[in-house]
């Protein structure tokens, strides 16, 4: 097993208990998703006031909700198309709120360079999701590129806990740009392949 796989398995054990409690209480998964977003807003506030460690802890709690909603929906047999849509939209709120928190912080410090870097990272993070969603309306699958939401969230937490947010923003920014480019290229290639296949 790889080391990232081992970390994933270890993290999943405590989550099983939380999922079980949510299932017993029959908490609707859409409510869990929404609570996760609200908690992320608090994390964004903590980032905005420069309290990174606190923000890291709040992000952990918020993302527990974010992670378990799908599992609870599965166990309660409440999976729905609207649930998937709601989850995606709420994820964007969560992502953008964290970036806005950092933009506020850097603006307060008079660091326009990092305001720009954070804004660019935010733009390409949103485009990462958008390109995949749009591509999958015209091709079957577009799951290429490294920097997806789970990677972003874990990087945010690492940046918050170890006070290395600037480096994290560079990584998120650069790899999100590459991911968007990957998806545009992949979609173009798949569409061309389909067209050539149809013509032949």
């Amino acid at each position, binding site marked *: 097993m*790889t080391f*990232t796989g081992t970390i994933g398995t270890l993290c999943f054990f405590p989550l099983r208990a939380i999922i079980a409690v949510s299932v017993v209480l029959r908490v609707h998964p859409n409510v869990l998703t929404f609570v996760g977003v609200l908690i992320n807003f608090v994390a964004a506030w903590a980032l905005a006031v420069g309290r990174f460690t606190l923000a890291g802890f709040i992000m952990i709690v918020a993302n527990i909700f974010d992670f378990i909603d799908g599992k609870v929906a599965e166990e309660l047999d409440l999976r729905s198309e609207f649930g998937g849509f709601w989850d995606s939209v709420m994820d964007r709120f969560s992502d953008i709120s964290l970036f806005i928190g950092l933009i506020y*912080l850097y603006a307060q410090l008079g660091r326009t360079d990092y305001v720009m870097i954070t804004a660019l990272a935010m733009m390409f993070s949103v485009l990462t999701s958008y390109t995949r969603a749009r591509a999958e309306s015209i091709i079957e699958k577009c799951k*290429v590129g490294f920097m997806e939401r789970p990677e972003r969230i874990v990087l945010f937490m690492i940046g918050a806990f*170890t006070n*290395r947010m*600037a480096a994290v923003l*560079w990584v998120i920014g650069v790899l999100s740009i590459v991911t968007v480019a990957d998806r545009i*290229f992949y979609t173009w290639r798949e569409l061309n392949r389909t067209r050539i296949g149809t013509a032949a």
Partner: protein
Amino acid sequence: MSPKVTRVLSLPFVIFWNALFWTYDRATWQYDLMVIAILAFVWLTPPAWLGDPIATGPGFIGWLLGLL
């Protein structure tokens, strides 16, 4: 990338291309390598090199350079 193209190109370019045009799943050894590279950048780069508005200190690389 087609096998024909892969044969023509040199190994470093293929590695670079595969890292750039990422198609690997999570929990693969390629994913682990990428994670290690990212963590190395985040933790080892001196905050001053990036003009970090919040973090201070030399970072691991800065500390090593200070020893020289």
